[in-house]
């Protein structure tokens, strides 16, 4: 069942000199099994928005529903909600605290009162899901490398076996390989049937992986649509000081230079295909190019 926001407002520190409205009139709907990317400038309300999804924040006005649970109203069902929606905060490795990685991953499952057997089963499953070697389970989380720490922390959320996974800047501060691995893991979880919502500044990451994009601007939804639709709107994005994916920028330049390439490519593979098409067209002379070929090289 879907996630629905109806006219949601959120105000931080109401009735103090620091009062700030972080969300204004936000309405949206996320269906089961979608992969949604949320982008927007700093301070546009992205993080505030996703914290409503598992009841960490409650709407000041309006309604948020996840399945049949109304966030804020159904107080007794908060635990149930947190099992449905897993939330991975920015720099999740800063939340690690236990003596061993195993105990840290087990923290969530233990909190929801599972049997020891089930807890251990989940720990191993979560560990595999984030590509961690089971051998590190008995080491201290503070001995791990930065990338491993992040994966251990994400495993701690996954072990809740949530159906919806929300990730706030999961690739921030990772090296290129770490980033690629992270995106692969998310893709795998998504193809396993999980709904994934990813907040990111990394337009290129979102372009590669999301089905649909929500653009936040000053607490409201600026645009939403399929990834291709959104990243075609170069001028609109630029007005919000956002950019189109780097591949699309290159294609745009090529087009300005008079080379007939499509500008709405999202990934490097698509760009390569489109370029190959153009080059082949030149060689054979007549062939019409078709920019919808979305296959790998």
């Amino acid at each position, binding site marked *: 069942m879907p996630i629905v926001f109806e006219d949601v407002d959120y105000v931080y520190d109401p*009735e103090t000199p620091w009062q700030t409205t972080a969300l204004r009139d936000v309405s949206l709907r996320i269906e089961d099994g979608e992969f949604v990317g949320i982008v927007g400038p700093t301070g546009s309300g992205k993080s505030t928005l996703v914290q409503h999804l598992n009841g960490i924040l409650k709407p000041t006005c309006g309604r948020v529903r996840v399945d049949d649970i109304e966030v804020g109203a159904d107080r007794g069902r908060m635990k149930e909600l947190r099992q449905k929606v897993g*939330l991975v*905060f920015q720099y999740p490795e800063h939340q690690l*605290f236990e003596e061993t990685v195993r105990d840290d991953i087990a*923290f969530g499952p233990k909190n929801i009162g599972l049997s020891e057997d089930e807890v251990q089963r989940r720990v191993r499953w979560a560990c595999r899901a984030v590509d961690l070697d089971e051998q590190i389970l008995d080491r201290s989380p503070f001995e791990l490398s930065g990338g491993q720490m992040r994966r251990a922390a994400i495993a701690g959320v996954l072990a809740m076996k949530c159906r919806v996974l929300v990730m706030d800047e999961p690739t921030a501060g990772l090296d290129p390989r770490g980033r690629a691995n992270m995106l692969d893991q998310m893709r795998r979880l998504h193809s396993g049937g999980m709904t994934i919502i990813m907040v990111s500044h990394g337009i290129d990451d979102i372009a590669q992986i999301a089905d649909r994009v929500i653009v936040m601007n000053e607490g409201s939804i600026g645009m939403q649509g399929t990834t291709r639709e959104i990243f075609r709107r170069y001028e609109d994005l630029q007005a919000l000081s956002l950019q189109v994916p780097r591949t699309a920028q290159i294609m745009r330049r090529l087009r300005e230079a008079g080379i007939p390439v499509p500008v709405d490519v999202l990934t490097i593979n698509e760009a390569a295909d489109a370029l190959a098409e153009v080059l082949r067209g030149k060689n054979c002379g007549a062939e019409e190019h078709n920019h919808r070929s979305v296959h790998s090289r």
Partner: protein
Amino acid sequence: MLKSITIGQYIPGESIIHRLDPRTKILGTLGYVVILFVLRGPAGYAVMAGITAAVALLGRIPVRMLLRGLRPVLIIILFTIVLNMVMTPGETVYQLGPLDVTDEGIVQAATMSIRVILLIMTTSMLTLTTAPIDLTDGIEYLLGPFRRLGVPAHELAMMMTIALRFIPTLVDELERIMKAQMARGADFDTGSFLDRAKSMIPLLVPLFISAFRRADDLALAMEARCYRGGEGRTRYKVLKVSTPDFWAGAFLVCTFGAALWV
């Protein structure tokens, strides 16, 4: 939840109180506290309350902020009232089981609670109207003469500046960690005392780790900019006493005198 701590909080403003030299404000507050505790008789307290009201008005401090500062000490105030009422020997006006509420006790309870309330309100006004940096600059200057006695004035001021600077950062950090652990089903509000104490571990361990990391980074950043203590350091912002400070000083001396007199 953690935002209700008003002591140490600063509300930026442009009022005359905000613009006073921090040293004037610190000495004024110190004087106020001393007078408050040597005072006898209700008329004096009325004068002191008048001073507090005048400063709050001139500083355009919202009443709500002042009242909010009292919330954490409410229990102490209630305790003071009850203890003073039943523990002071004197003429019994009301019998409460084995305890006697005395005439003198009621007077004592009233003066003590008014003292505490005025004390909290006025000292929190100092921080509400003075930027933390100005405050520590003022303290460093005022502690200067004691350096000969071995008081590390600059180091103390620097430590205070850093501590004050990091309070909001650590509060934010704590809130973030709290949210992250809540997302993993942690529960901080229910259970026995022992359960609740235990539920602090997932908050405190990450908080300490991040505090140490920040301290390391800060030390490195300071060393990279050649920080080596206060010796020979010049100031970007030089404290200056101006006309309003004289007026404020004169006003305080007069009113303090009046409070002691009446």
